């Protein structure tokens, strides 16, 4: 099967600082891929390139058959690492607003998710807590039917109970056959979910492959390995 995402020899500099150097990997259909690295390792930069938000880079990125951009955006549902919601709207109106933007936006499913995540649809976005806003954003992404979900730090900054709920929401709702690229620096509770992992260290891939193979080869968990690779 052709990969959903191909990244080849991607380099990105911010002035004199190399943010990404020679990054290459594939995401095959139906895989959950963990993009793992500490803060500042280049995860968000890489994700922004794939999502077409940064065009100033070297190398090749292909999503389905397209380079990053308008056509590729149809194949991707992206959860940014920061909040970007029209906060003057009520939650239920946010759903309508997004439904106008995306052909594949399933508004009924989004509403269902909000119920299970206990986000009040009648409230205005600005009245929601930080955690509630994050859950709303997650529902806006997971109710779509793309080939690739890109989730940038969906479980950072939430308590372990909410982490479970968020991961459950992701797993319950991601579309069969679609892939997930999920960046995180918290691994211990979620490592069993990953089919493949990519360790990003100072903008370079330090380790990549199927999670089960790595566990078998190294005789330790991805979490333990992560702590070793990124030991300060």
């Amino acid at each position, binding site marked *: 099967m052709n990969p959903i995402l191909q990244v080849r020899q991607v380099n990105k500099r911010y002035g004199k600082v190399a943010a990404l150097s020679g990054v290459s990997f594939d995401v095959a259909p*139906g*895989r*959950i891929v963990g993009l793992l690295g500490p803060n500042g390792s280049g995860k968000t930069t890489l994700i922004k390139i794939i999502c077409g938000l940064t065009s100033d880079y070297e190398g090749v990125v292909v999503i389905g058959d397209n380079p990053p951009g308008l056509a590729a955006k149809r194949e991707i549902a992206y959860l940014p690492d920061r909040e970007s919601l029209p906060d003057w709207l009520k939650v239920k109106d946010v759903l309508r607003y997004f439904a106008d933007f995306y052909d594949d936006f399933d508004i009924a499913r989004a509403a269902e998710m909000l119920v299970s995540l206990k986000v009040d649809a009648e409230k205005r976005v600005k009245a929601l807590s930080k955690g509630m806003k994050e859950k709303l954003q997650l529902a806006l992404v997971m109710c779509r039917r793309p080939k690739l979900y890109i989730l940038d730090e969906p479980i950072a900054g939430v308590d372990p109970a909410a982490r*479970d709920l968020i*991961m*459950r929401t992701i*797993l*319950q709702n991601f579309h069969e056959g679609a892939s997930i690229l999920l960046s995180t620096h918290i691994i211990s*509770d*979620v490592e*069993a*979910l*990953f*089919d493949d992992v990519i360790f990003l260290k100072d903008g370079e891939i330090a380790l990549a492959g199927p999670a*089960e193979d790595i*566990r*078998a080869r190294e*005789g*330790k*968990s991805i*979490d*333990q390995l992560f702590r070793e690779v990124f030991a300060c």
Partner: protein
Amino acid sequence: MSYQFQNDSPIYAQIVDRFKRDIARGALLPGERVTPVRELALTLGVSLNTLQRALTDLEREGLLYTERTAGRFVTTDRSQADILRRALSERTAQTYVEALRDMNFTDGDILALTQRTLEPHTNKKEEDTP
């Protein structure tokens, strides 16, 4: 994500072991329907691919079988559970004996210790039924 996996072996292999244990101790009965894949993956907190790999292994070993539309079931061959039970009991006993031998206990010591450990239960039974 309730189930805790060990760090040092592949998760699919641990799922296979868990199924075998459940079949051996009768938590999964012959002919019983296995929880649908997606739901089970959620309960275990593992990816669909990992679970699928474990289930395929179990099918290959003849412990589970799939019926095209109805789902996946535990083998109706009851002797399989007995075989698993015996294998598991032997493995558990072996681990126990090896651990004690490692602490330089003689076989006589191990037998005596086993006896002493079993006795409170036997006594209790006698008290229950005077």
